[in-house]
């Protein structure tokens, strides 16, 4: 098996390949990842599964060196799974694979303990290097993501309550409806909206909702 790689890595390949767990709800994507890894002698895909719950289970079973984790999955999302796994196995090395480059989502994932945040559009080029880097104990970020993170690094994060409000704003709800949904007063809603606008630097509610979506603070 000839791999055009650095000698250093090639040496350490065969006997202890990097054991990898792939978590994605899409089988074809998992298939693609499997194909990528399969060509690497220093990597071995030990298990793949399609949601967070299975990921926790498989992690316990296989104790992979590196876990590739999608964020948006049915039953249990990637973020929760990361938290759960990291809670159980603080050394777990997890790479987040995602479609979007939202700073908040990335930040959350990193705060939850992910070692890397990789956009899927770059996977075909960077996955292998990233796996190796993470396995070597490094943290990596896609350039887009790191740019966004830097941009908002000094922003005040939205509180949970504010995120709830922003989610409902994006759903097209008025203050009164939001207050009803969240069982809080309309004045509280107004106060939170004010905070949201200020924290996100938004001009108005819709702008805020757009920012929230873009940055991954909220999802539809």
């Amino acid at each position, binding site marked *: 098996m000839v791999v*055009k790689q650095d000698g250093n890595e090639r040496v350490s390949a065969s006997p202890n390949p990097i054991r990898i767990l792939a978590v*994605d*709800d*899409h*089988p*074809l*994507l*998992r*298939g*693609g*990842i499997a*194909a*990528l890894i*399969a*060509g690497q002698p220093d990597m071995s895909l030990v298990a793949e599964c399609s949601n967070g719950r299975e990921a926790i289970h498989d992690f316990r079973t296989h104790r992979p060196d590196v876990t590739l984790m999608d964020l*948006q999955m049915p039953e249990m999302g990637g973020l929760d799974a990361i938290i759960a796994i990291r809670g159980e196995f603080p050394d777990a090395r997890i790479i987040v694979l995602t*479609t*979007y480059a939202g700073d908040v989502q990335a930040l959350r994932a990193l705060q939850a303990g992910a070692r890397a945040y990789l956009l*899927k*559009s*770059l*996977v*075909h*080029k960077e*996955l292998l290097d990233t796996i190796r880097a993470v396995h070597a104990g490094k943290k990596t970020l896609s350039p887009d993501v790191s740019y966004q993170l830097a941009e908002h690094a000094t922003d005040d994060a939205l509180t949970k309550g504010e995120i709830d409000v922003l989610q409902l704003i*994006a*759903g*097209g*709800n*008025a203050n*009164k*409806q939001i207050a009803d949904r969240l069982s809080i007063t309309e004045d509280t809603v107004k106060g939170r909206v004010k905070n949201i606008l200020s924290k996100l630097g938004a001009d*108005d509610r*819709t*702008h805020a*909702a*757009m920012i929230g*979506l*873009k940055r991954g603070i909220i999802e*539809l």
Partner: protein
Amino acid sequence: MPRQSYTDASTRTGISCKRLFTTMVPSVSGKRRRIVARTIAVAFAVLTSCPSAFALNPTLEVSQYAHSAWTVADGFTKGAIYAIAQTPDGYLWLGTEFGLLRFDGVRTTLWPSDRVFPSSQIRTLLTGRDGTLWVGTSKGLASWKDGRLTVYAELAGHIVTRMIQDRDGAVWVVGTTPPTGKLCAIRNGGVRCWGEDGRFGARVTEMYEDRKANLWFGEPRGVWRWNQGQPQFYPLRIDRSVQALSEDSDGVLLVLLSGRIYRMMDGQVLEAYRLPDAIGRLTTRFVLRRDRDGGLWIGALGGGLAHIHNGTVDQFSESDGLSGNAVATLFQDREGNIWVGTQAGLDRFRELPVAPFTARQGFSNLRILAVVASTDSSVWVRTADGLNQWKDGRVNVYREFSGLSDSTALPHMSPATRDPADDGGQFESSGGALFEDERGRIWFSATRSVGYLDRGRFTAVRTIPGGRVHSITGNLMGHLWFAHETQGLFHLAGEHAVERISWARLGHTDYADTLAVDPSSDGLWLGFFRGGVEFVKDGQVRASYAEAGGMAPGRVNDLRFGRDGALWAAAEGGVSRLKSGRITTLSSRDGLPCSEAHWTMEDDAGDFWLSMPCGLVRIARTDLDAWTSLADEKLPQSTIPVTVLATADGVRSRGNAGPFSPHVAKARDGRLWFFPLEGLSALDPHRLSFNTPPPPIAIEQISADSRIYLPASEVRLPPLIRNLAIDYTALSFVAPEKVRFRTKLEGHDREWQNVGNRRQAFYTDLGPGRYRFRVTASNNSGVWNEAGASLDFAIAPAYYQTNLFRASIVAALLALLWSVYQLRLRQIAREYNARLDERVSERTRVARELHDTLLQTFHGLLFRFQAATNLLPEGPARQSFESAIDQAAQAITEGRDAVQGLRSSTVTTNDLPAAIGSLGDELSTNETNKSAVAFHVHVEGAPRNLHPIIRDDIYRIAGEAIRNAFRHAQARHIDADIEYHARQLRLLVRDDGQGIDPTVIEGSGRGHWGLPGMRERAELIGGHLEVWSQLGSGTEVRLTIPASRAYATSSGRRFWWSSSKTGTNA
């Protein structure tokens, strides 16, 4: 009503008589005046020369007037009637023992019920010329005008016994407080009294103003004359107290002293009339009134009425039907009726067109067989018991004492006593015809033979049998004909030459009961009992007319030649006119009230009179002439106008004509004499008592649901009146029962309603609104008061009948409709939004689907390709693959961004201006002609939330338009205006470039402007796209979207009214 002075009366009656009667009667003959007292005669002549419409024919006695009585016993009033007056509005006022009554001829009303006179015992009444009603009571004087009552302190406690108003308007009042009294004159509210000194005025019992405006005051011992403010006393040498004053027809003062009437001239008194003992002896209190036709009426307290007419005195008392013998007052109203107030009631006298003559006038028997008028102006009447001659108001009775024997001796005839009960028993009623020959002899039929009366002596003609001789006639040559029921027709020429023609010889089994000589030949006309008329000459029938030839059928009662030479035959089946052999018949088909005619007569004016069972019929001469001229030319006739006099006019009808002729006589004075079954009737065609003044009309009260309202300028009634009654009356007293009314309630009736003589109009359930009640009336002569009277009243609407209420109902309905409309609008908007939401969710679903499946799949495939590529050796193939993979990754990223765009568009609802602005900025930096273009976005109105889909579409349309402007227009300025209006959203994109070819705009030409796509998109979101462009001067694209489509409503924006009604609208 002002007192009618003598001259005024004659002037006015003169006018009315000219209008009513075309021909005047010649003045009465001098002979007639001979018996009449000199003084009365003057007035009589003046009066009769012009008969009055108000007339009370002074040649008649009281008993010949129509009399009506209302008695206390029948409940008419509570007590004695002391005074009568008539106010200008037409009402009669009765001063009674128990208050003042208003009387309209039918109803009495105690009046004024809420005012208090000094005493309820009314003693005298006077209507001033200004309309004031003066009320003299037993305890003082009051006057009443325009609803105001004035009481005079000067007469407080006095019995007011007499009141008059003099020519200057001063009201003179006599008040007594026995044993003294006073006389007061009230002028313009100022009162001056006399009598406190015991001299003038202290003992006045009677007052009178004569035609020369002299004021006279009667006292026990004499008469004062008011002379230029200075009273002058004329002592009477007769030791009697003055009981009443009046004046004679020549203006001389009449003084009534103890039942005798004296004329007073130059302080001297002369006895003129003596009242019957029954009146004069027993009474000390009198009232005296001269009627407008010169009749003098005397009322005695206890003796009834006396009436001096034509120089003679007649009486009328309780036994004749007067309500009582205690006469307290006399009054003549504006229509000429004489009213008598007694202690027991009220009486009215008026003249009838047809006056009755009975035993009271001296006729010996009330069964009359025939009547004939003599050339000497007397009227001969064949009564059942003899002959009566009426001449100059007296009756001479001829009755047989020794019988008309068949001896040649002349019967002994002499004027009989005037005892109607004694009919002698021998003057049989079997025969009855009368005739006056050319020598003035009165022929008649007695038991055994006919005979004549000549200057009071009877001569029998024994050659002609007596008994049932039905008709006698004769010509100027001394020929006489007698129609005997059984013996046939007798012809007497000279004294003895007698010719007899049996009925059989004339071809009849019946007999002729009426005869007439032909004025143009010596022939004779016969009318037969069983019908038919024949002309007989020289003992031969020359002509015969029967029903088949057009004659009126049935018994021929009367034949008479008219002044035009036509023969009139009155028969059972009508009246036939025979002239020049032509017959025309009038019957009930031609407008007569019934068919049987008893007789016909033409009066001096040429008017035609016809006696029928249903009354006395008058056909005006002109109407008859019109009818006869058509008849002579045999032209078709319309109905003929007639006037019918019936019972109310004094006509007493009979069912058949009676067997003997003549049935009617026209006296020289023009009066028609005829006879009902009992007594005689006289009609003076010149005095038809036409009642000219139209009756005043009064609306008395309006009662609504038992509440009474007095007439005011406008009576306001409460809402929801169920029963409404309006009392009205017409003040004609001649025959109130013949008054006819017409009413109309404007606002309810369209036409006038003929309501007969009803004096109350009744309406039920009148709606709210304004009404005018109008009423007109005609008097007994059919004279209408055309102006009538009216009363305005208004019924208030109930709350639900008000316009405000109706308007609010309409408003509520409109509001409801509007609500429904809005509801529908909202429903449509909701449906539209639901569709939009569907589109949104569809897009979201598509986005998610793309993201979740396609993108991931592509990623997966890409990974595999990458994995496969990794296996390739370095070289062109691997490079080519890697490049393809990079491009595929790039495509996936773009796809991702598109998906993200799809998703984010559903929330970016309000950044249209910003989006357009940034698009413009982007284009202006990218395009090649960036140096020249200036792009601006303008926002007008407050930006509103747009539905995401709409926003996207608008954005795309705007983008297309802006791109067009940038790419093709070569514009220097491009402007985008976004206008948020209340009713619509408008987007304008304009440039100042080179414009678009019109064919492209119209859609016929294809270009790269994408206009069809823009239009389709606009229509899809319910908008409208207009493109205006001109080559060389720019382009303007206008997109208009209605507010209901454009603006988002899901943010809780609701209609104002729906927020409170969410529950019912949901």
